[in-house]
């Protein structure tokens, strides 16, 4: 270091700059005087020395490369040094003139080779040349086919050959081969050529690129046989050669009888897929022959195994004859039915190709837009083969519709056979028909609007699905509720009585209020509403009747306006006109005055009254409570709620502490999806029960009641106070993102643009690559098809298509080589 900076100081500023530039890189390259250098040489150890006249600026470029070669050469036990020839200490290696500087390779202190620096043009060349010189015996350099044949013959039955062609000595490919030879040189005979003629003579057309063949000579017993050859397909890099040779060492074919997902071979570790040929005892011999053939074809590309189905404990699909396992972890194995052995080859090769692409554009990985991500559409599609007992409902047509709905009270489901939501609801509808079978005088009917479009339009149905009830003498009523069996059942049951029902005596009214009168209906309507009116309150009665009509199917309403109505109003302390609300579950009857309320208000009063103070929240009723627009206070409970918690919250409700919230609880046994909610709120789920406040309508903040505190009135109150005061911090904020398209769409506009700019005639029969693939496909199957339609379903089409295309290509490729 010292001497070098000294020199630099002498040659001037520009050189200083260069040296500073190189300084950091030069670190590992030891610089010695000739004398010192020769004293460090150890017997048997290789060393590369560059004898340098420091005042020649040209050498610096070389030094950079040399410096890079230090590390790789050291890996092979070769030391590198720069020897400075200063005037006082000359050596014969220093050269006479400035231009004649050279690098020398020594083993011990014996000179093996001298290299003019222009042959060592870069780091690859340095490593390649040095190793080539050192491995003179291991790597045979040949120039003629005869040489090759001689070596081949000599090694038959003894050793395998790694024969490579590189375009020139010192290329990166040459270096890769030499590095491989350094490792495997004792196991395999390495043969190297740069003669294109030699390469051509063994049947390769592609002489542009480097090639490596593996000659399987060891197993050749008859000297007249040729050694089998396997071409390495990936580009010649050290890693690829290593991988390739490893697979050559692995057994050609392995028999296994275990779960393909569990099998592990060297191939997987090398990032190569596995192909299992499924074999049965009966066809074992043939299968093995096939498998061997495949194994030879796929040598270096994939591991081939014979899977003995009869000894297998796991189930594999009955028709599958090939199992494909990708090298990536966690990808499930694919069970394939392939009738052509070539298809196996192309299947593997096309997958390798895909892998390569993915490596190139890692983050461009596009999700398959062909995969259904609509849960309703997908479930209906998956269920399409199940036969529904449709006969339980009457199918109506344009001809039968009017007659049917006139003849009997009917529920009509309007649906469209192609629409998933309709078809999902049709299942619930059929379930309802099963439930109601023989018990209802309501006729369950359906109209498929895909068939009877005009009928549906006439019935004012332009969306699907729609349920309407047709009752004699009344205009059809649309069902407004949840599209499910239970809610529709409730609607139908509650519609059995007129709304409001006319109560004629005090006794009947009492029975009505106690739930005795419509015993079978109170399970559908937890509240019975009774309007009390003096006989002369006509307007009020009309309003109430209108409201009752409006709420038909949602709650039971009754009206009493006999002369003795005062008996009831006195008993329940109600001023006429009034509503009596009988809550059957709680056995309570309350009264609400109805002073000149119009029908709309009455509806509002009744719907408000239907809300519970501390309801169990369910999938069905959540929307009702959301209408209150208040933050939810939810108690998540695994099973029934602890009565003490309930009491605590009800007390707070009664004391009006919870007026700004909607208190409710959720039973995870009834509403398992509540767990999904909890997962979104908590990173680590504390033990249940859990109490949270969810502010859905403003900000989306979620607060959790500390799980280490007992749910008592006092604690809760304190917590709510702190919450109100802004002293509590939220555990999470619900994401406020808009719901964006889950996946991109095909951009046909740019495809059309691209096609228009490429060839103005657009789709020509012969130009697209799909054409080739399909043609190939169809030629085998159906030459006479009048109009060619894709026979495969879309789900498998992508696979087949890319395969066939690739398959054909690679098949040709193979034919030429083997």
């Amino acid at each position, binding site marked *: 270091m010292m001497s070098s900076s000294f020199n630099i100081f002498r040659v001037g500023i520009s050189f200083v700059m260069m040296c500073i530039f190189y300084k950091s890189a030069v670190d590992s390259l030891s610089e010695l005087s000739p004398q010192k250098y020769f004293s460090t040489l150890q017997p048997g150890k290789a060393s590369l020395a560059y004898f340098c006249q420091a005042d020649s600026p040209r050498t610096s470029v070389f030094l950079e490369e040399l410096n890079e070669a230090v590390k790789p050469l050291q890996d092979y036990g070769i030391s590198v040094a720069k020897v400075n020839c200063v005037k006082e200490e000359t050596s014969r290696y220093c050269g006479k003139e400035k231009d004649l500087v050279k690098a020398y390779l020594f083993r011990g202190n014996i000179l093996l080779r001298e290299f003019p620096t222009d042959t060592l043009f870069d780091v690859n060349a340095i490593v390649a040349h040095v190793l080539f010189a050192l491995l003179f015996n291991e790597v045979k350099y040949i120039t003629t086919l005869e040489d090759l044949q001689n070596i081949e013959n000599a090694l038959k039955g003894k050793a395998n050959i790694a024969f490579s062609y590189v375009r020139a000595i010192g290329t990166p490919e040459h270096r890769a081969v030499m590095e491989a030879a350094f490792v495997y040189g004792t196991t395999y005979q390495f043969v190297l050529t740069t003669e294109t003629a030699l390469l051509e003579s063994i049947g390769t057309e592609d002489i542009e690129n480097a090639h490596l063949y593996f000659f399987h000579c060891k197993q050749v017993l008859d000297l007249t046989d040729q050694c089998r050859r396997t071409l390495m397909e990936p580009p010649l890099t050290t890693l690829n050669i290593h991988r390739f040779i490893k697979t050559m060492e692995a057994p050609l074919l392995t028999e296994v009888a275990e779960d393909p997902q569990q099998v592990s071979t060297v191939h997987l570790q090398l990032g190569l897929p596995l192909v299992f040929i499924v074999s049965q005892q009966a066809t074992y011999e043939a299968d093995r022959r096939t498998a061997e053939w495949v194994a030879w074809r796929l040598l270096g590309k994939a591991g081939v195994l014979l899977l003995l189905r009869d000894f297998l404990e796991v189930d594999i699909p009955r028709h599958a004859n090939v199992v494909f396992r990708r090298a990536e972890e966690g990808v499930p194995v694919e069970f394939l039915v392939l009738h052509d052995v070539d298809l196996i080859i192309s299947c593997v090769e096309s997958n390798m190709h895909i892998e390569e692409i993915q490596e190139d554009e890692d983050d461009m990985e596009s999700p398959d*837009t*062909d995969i*259904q*991500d*609509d*849960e309703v*559409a*997908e*479930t209906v599609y998956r*269920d399409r083969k*199940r036969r529904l007992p449709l006969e339980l409902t009457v199918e109506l047509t*344009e001809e039968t519709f009017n007659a049917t709905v006139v003849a009997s009270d009917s529920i009509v489901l309007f649906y469209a056979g192609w629409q998933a*939501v309709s078809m*999902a*609801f049709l*299942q*619930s509808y059929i379930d309802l028909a099963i439930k109601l079978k023989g018990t209802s005088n309501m006729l369950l009917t359906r109209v498929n609007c*895909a068939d009877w479009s005009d009928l549906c339009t006439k019935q004012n149905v*332009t969306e699907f699905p729609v349920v309407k009830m047709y009752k004699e003498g009344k205009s059809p009523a649309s069902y*407004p509720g*949840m*599209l*499910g*069996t239970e809610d529709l059942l409730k609607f139908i049951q509650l519609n059995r009585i007129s709304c409001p029902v006319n109560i004629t005596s005090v006794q009947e009214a009492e029975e009505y209020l106690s739930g005795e009168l419509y015993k079978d209906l109170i399970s559908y309507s937890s509240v019975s509403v009774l309007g009390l009116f003096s006989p002369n309150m006509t307007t009020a009665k009309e309003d109430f009747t209108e409201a009752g009509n409006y709420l038909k199917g949602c709650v039971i309403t009754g009206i009493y306006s006999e002369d003795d109505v005062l008996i009831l109003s006195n008993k329940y302390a109600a001023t006429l006109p009034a509503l009596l609300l009988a809550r059957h579950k709680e056995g309570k009857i309350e009264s609400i005055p109805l002073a000149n309320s119009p029908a709309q208000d009455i509806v509002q009063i009744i719907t408000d009254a239907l809300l519970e103070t501390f309801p169990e929240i369910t*999938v069905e009723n959540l*929307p009702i409570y*959301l209408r209150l627009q208040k933050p939810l206070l939810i108690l998540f409970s695994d099973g029934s709620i602890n009565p003490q918690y309930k009491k605590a919250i009800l007390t707070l409700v009664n004391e009006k502490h919870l007026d700004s919230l909607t208190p409710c609880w959720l039973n*995870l046994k009834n*509403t*398992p*999806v509540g*767990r*999904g*909610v909890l997962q979104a709120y908590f990173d680590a789920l504390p033990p249940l029960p859990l109490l949270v406040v*969810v502010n*859905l309508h403003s900000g989306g903040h979620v607060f959790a009641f500390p799980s280490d505190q007992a749910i008592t009135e006092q604690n809760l109150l304190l917590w709510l106070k702190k919450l109100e005061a802004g002293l509590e*911090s939220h555990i*999470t*904020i*619900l*994401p406020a*993102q808009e*719901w*964006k*398209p889950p*996946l*991109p*769409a*095909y*951009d*046909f*506009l740019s*495809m059309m643009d691209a096609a228009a700019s490429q060839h103005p005639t657009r*789709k020509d*029969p012969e130009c697209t690559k799909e054409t080739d693939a*399909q043609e190939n496909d169809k030629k085998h199957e159906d030459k006479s098809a009048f*109009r*060619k*339609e894709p026979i495969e379903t879309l*789900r498998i089409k992508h696979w087949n298509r890319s395969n066939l295309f690739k398959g054909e290509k690679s098949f040709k490729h193979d034919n030429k080589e083997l």
Partner: protein
Amino acid sequence: MGFSAAARLWGPPGLLLTFVLHPALCLRPAQTSAPPRRDYCVLGAGPAGLQMAYFLQRAGRDYAVFERAPRPGSFFTRYPRHRKLISINKRHTGKANAEFNLRHDWNSLLSHDPRLLFRHYSRAYFPDAGDMVRYLGDFADQLGLHVLYNTTITHVTLNKDRQAWNGHYFILTDGMGHAHRCSVLLVATGLSVPNQVDFPGSEYVEGYESVSVDPKDFEGQNVLILGRGNSAFETAENILGVTNFIHMLSRSRVRLSWATHYVGDLRAINNGLLDTYQLKSLDGLLESDLTDLAVVKDREGKFHVTLKFFLEEGNQSADTITLPQDDSDNFAMRVAYDRVIRCLGWNFDFSIFNKSLRLSSGGEFSKKYPLVRASYESKGSRGLFVLGTASHSVDYRKSAGGFIHGFRYTVRAVHRLLEHRHHGVAWPSTQHPISQLTSSIVRRVNEASGLYQMFGVLADVVLLKENATAFEYLEEFPMQMLAQLETITGRKARHGLFVINMEYGRNFSGPDKDVFFYDRSVGHTEDAWQSNFLHPVIYYYRHLPTEQEVRFRPADWALPRPTAIHHIVEDFLTDWTAPVGHILPLRRFLENCLDTDLRSFYAESCFLFTLTHQKLPPFCQQGYLRMQGLVGTESLWRHGVESGLLRDYAIVGRRREDQGQGPLSSSQAPGPPVQPLDSNKEEL
């Protein structure tokens, strides 16, 4: 399609004189003998006239139809001469959907009465023209349409009046000299004047309208037919077996309708002569411009074809005229013909329309059609609409607007336009929440007959509401009028729109195209834009295109360049309801145009989203939150869990209990691609 003879010119000259000489008289509102007034006058009780009458009647409008003949559809009493209609009468499609079935019923008019479908009038696939006459008569009678029969309108003129809807009245004068004053004139007179080409010797030529239809009259004759349309081939078909040979001559090459996808071109049912020509059975086709030819008659009364300029050399005697074969002895038409028949189609009868109407013919189609806008309104006078066959200039050689199965829809479009213009009735539409968008489109592309028949002319339009939460659906709008949509329909298009059209592949149709090439059908969704057969195409525009954009759109584009375009891949069965092949890509397209998630969800998923997101996908907002969530059934739910789209939270709970804290990734649960919930915690 009243067929009024070409020779008959204007009405009584006296009356005409009155109007011409005293226009001031007409301008006076309080005229002493005011002619009967009508809001709508329809000329001609053919299919188009009756169709318009039907819509006017249903809307309760003041209208009258004027018909020269004593019954409707007089054109069909004589034409086609050989009585076989080439419009198909498909009585079975295997489907019950009446709208869909109209796609394959080329003869019926539109009405609410299913008894007035043509299939009740004929069992023949190619029905007899007599049945059409009977059908049109029933249509007029049973619907009680207001038709004035035996009323020949001999002259139509314009009378300016500020009070009038359009600033002028149309004055119609009938054969009795009575005048009728109309606010709107709907011309449905069809094409009634046989097209004649003037060349020396054209007087020897018999016309399609009068030539014998009895094959016996052609026994052993050499026949030359001028023309290459269906009437020419129909005539040839009739006499093919009895003639020595038939030669057919026309300017352009034969256009086969199965290659051009235009029903007006030569239909396969008439093409027997192509067969015999190509099999060298003496019949033949030739191309030449008729205007260059001349026909000369020799002493035996036979006809020779020669060139016009030979005649101009001065020799007038038939025997001395130079014939082409004199110079070129292998001239194709060197034989003598016994008959020359002209089958060159028809033109519109302009003769009754006064110049003040400025009802002129368009340049390109010369005399054939009056010039109209894409709204079927005359370019010359507001309030004058051309309906039916005469309106075919809009889509000549493209779509079906010149035929019953096409113009029955364009007539309806004109009627809708009029309802808005004069009665304030906006173009009919239905409004839906955005979650119904995919379904609405799928429904229409699968059943709509107007879109299917009038592809490239009438298109459905989806007008988006603010924030794309809802939309309006307008059916069968004349798509070339897209820029004027708001004024024509009375609907607002402020927030973007979709146009749903049906199209054949760009380069698929044409007289010289091989429509049977090997790879003609497309099956893969990503290649849908290359579909060749008729398939739905959906255009998305952020803003209503301007008139300029519509007019100067790229060549061979049906509409101006949209913001985005979607092709639903062609389908062999024209059934575009496949969940993955058709509906899914359509949904993705709509989603990406609207930048929202249009998937449907079960109530349980909506419940989860409601409690874990501040915003909901439209389907949950417009269904679940309104108490109309889709509950689903046990078996569907199981499929959902199997597919990975739904999660079994009961199992999650159990596992959690077993393992304390399980690896619970929420990635499987359907949801928007959002960052995990807790990412917001940093905000604290």
